[in-house]
């Protein structure tokens, strides 16, 4: 507890895009409630802080840490372990920390391929072909950058995690609800939920919140959304042959994407208790393909051009296989 009597709060950004940080700020004036109830001890995006200040803290000195981003390099891992030690409650915040998210898709490729894409393709201006060096000697001595790991890991694959708040990013109203709940606990008005609870989600899946009309499903053809001339605004997207991950994705987002005519990509992760998100989608989608003929089934499946990317867009790093074979066949680090 700090000198002013307020418990300490931290937030950290590892391998992720930064959207989660913005989502927290996007709760508008409610951020004042955070300030009123917490002392912000460490939040690099919002205020200056040094790792060594955190290292100097007592174990468990921070009450609540929201950790967003996956563990892609040495630095991510170091801070994850550090914050774990210093925090009473460590929360995996956002899809990257929960299940790997888009950065986790890099687990399908070996590191050489990642560097090739990042530093040598047309979209990068790098005429001299310079690659980052882990160690570099300068007159002042040797400087280092953190070592990159061959695959991205989720937060709970590296340290013990108390709670999970999924979403890419978590919806603001869900963040507000969690903050309210934490404040209620601080005031002694509520109990903490059991360890491992996923917070800020509904009990069901996106369809529960989706207003599209749903019928029995019989899929004869899969189409990519960019190839659809007119999307029926009323009917379930899956019934229109558009791969929508809503049936398998935890509810809580208010079905924003399907409402806007875009299929659910699955950013809220699997429903409670589900072991492998992609398997759920594969099993359900294959079940409702309307054919018994092996050749016709293949022709229908040809419409799913990127199965790994479609079924594991957010969940690859947390899937049963964690990664693709290529990433560990590559030489990596």
């Amino acid at each position, binding site marked *: 507890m700090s000198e002013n009597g307020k418990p300490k709060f931290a937030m950290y950004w590892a391998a992720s895009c930064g959207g989660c940080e913005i989502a927290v700020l996007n709760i508008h004036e409610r951020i004042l409630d955070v300030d009123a109830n917490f002392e912000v001890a460490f939040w690099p995006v919002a205020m200056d802080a040094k790792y060594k200040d955190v290292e100097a803290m007592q174990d*468990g000195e921070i009450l609540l840490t929201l950790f967003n981003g996956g563990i892609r390099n040495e630095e991510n891992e170091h801070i994850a*372990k550090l914050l*774990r*030690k210093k925090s*009473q*409650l*460590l929360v995996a915040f956002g899809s990257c920390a929960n299940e790997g998210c888009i950065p986790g898709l890099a687990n*399908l490729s070996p590191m050489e391929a990642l560097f090739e894409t990042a530093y040598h393709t047309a979209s990068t201006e790098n005429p001299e072909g310079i690659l980052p060096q882990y160690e570099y000697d300068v007159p002042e001595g040797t400087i280092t950058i953190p070592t990159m*790991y*061959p*695959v991205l*890991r989720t937060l*709970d*694959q*590296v*340290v*013990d995690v*108390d709670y999970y708040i999924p979403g890419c990013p978590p919806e603001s109203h869900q963040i507000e609800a969690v903050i309210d709940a934490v404040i209620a606990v601080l005031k002694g008005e509520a109990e*903490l939920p059991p*360890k491992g609870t996923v917070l800020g989600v509904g009990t069901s899946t996106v369809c529960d919140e989706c207003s599209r009309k749903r019928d029995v499903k019989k899929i004869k053809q899969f189409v990519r959304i960019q190839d659809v001339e007119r999307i029926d605004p009323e009917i379930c997207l899956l019934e229109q042959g558009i791969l929508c991950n809503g049936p398998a994705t935890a509810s809580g987002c208010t079905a924003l994407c399907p409402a806007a005519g875009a299929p659910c990509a699955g950013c809220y992760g699997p429903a409670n208790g589900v*072991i*492998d998100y*992609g*398997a*759920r989608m*594969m*099993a359900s*989608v*294959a*079940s409702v*393909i309307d*054919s*018994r003929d*092996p050749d016709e*089934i*293949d022709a229908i*499946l040809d419409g*799913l051009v*990127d*199965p*790994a*990317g479609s*079924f*594991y867009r957010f969940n690859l790093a947390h*899937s*049963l*296989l*964690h*990664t*693709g*074979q*290529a*990433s*560990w*066949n590559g030489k*990596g680090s």
Partner: protein
Amino acid sequence: MTNEFDPVIIGFTCNWCSYRAADMAGTARIKYPHNVRLMRLMCSGRLDPTFVLKALAGGADGVLLTGCHPGECHYLEQNYKALRRVKLLKRTIAAMGIEPERVKLVWASAAEGTFLAKEIGVFVEEIKALGPLNWPQRAGINGIPVHQPEIEEVPA
């Protein structure tokens, strides 16, 4: 013992057909390779891709799925669902770099003990030709461990 690759294969069988075919192979003392470890589901339609992924991620080199012949499902038509799921699963694992041949679907009726034994033999040879999958170890090298908590339990 030689150092020859000795694969481990998990086999999912249907209670009504292939599990009985395995019974029959036993009763008839038909020998087949030891590499396959069978388990029973009520129907191939119970087959959840999670099971296959779990087996592959847990050290199996291949997964054999068996069900009643098309048109002969004891639950009328559920084996077609298994067929579709397996087809989709194979595409997905192929995209993840795993040889889709490591997952194989075979139809075997309760009367086809000899056939099932033969198919097991064929599959074991196919997996031997593919070599070890060795998923957890290799993934472990690249740091996908089963996380062991390192700290004291957090006071709630």
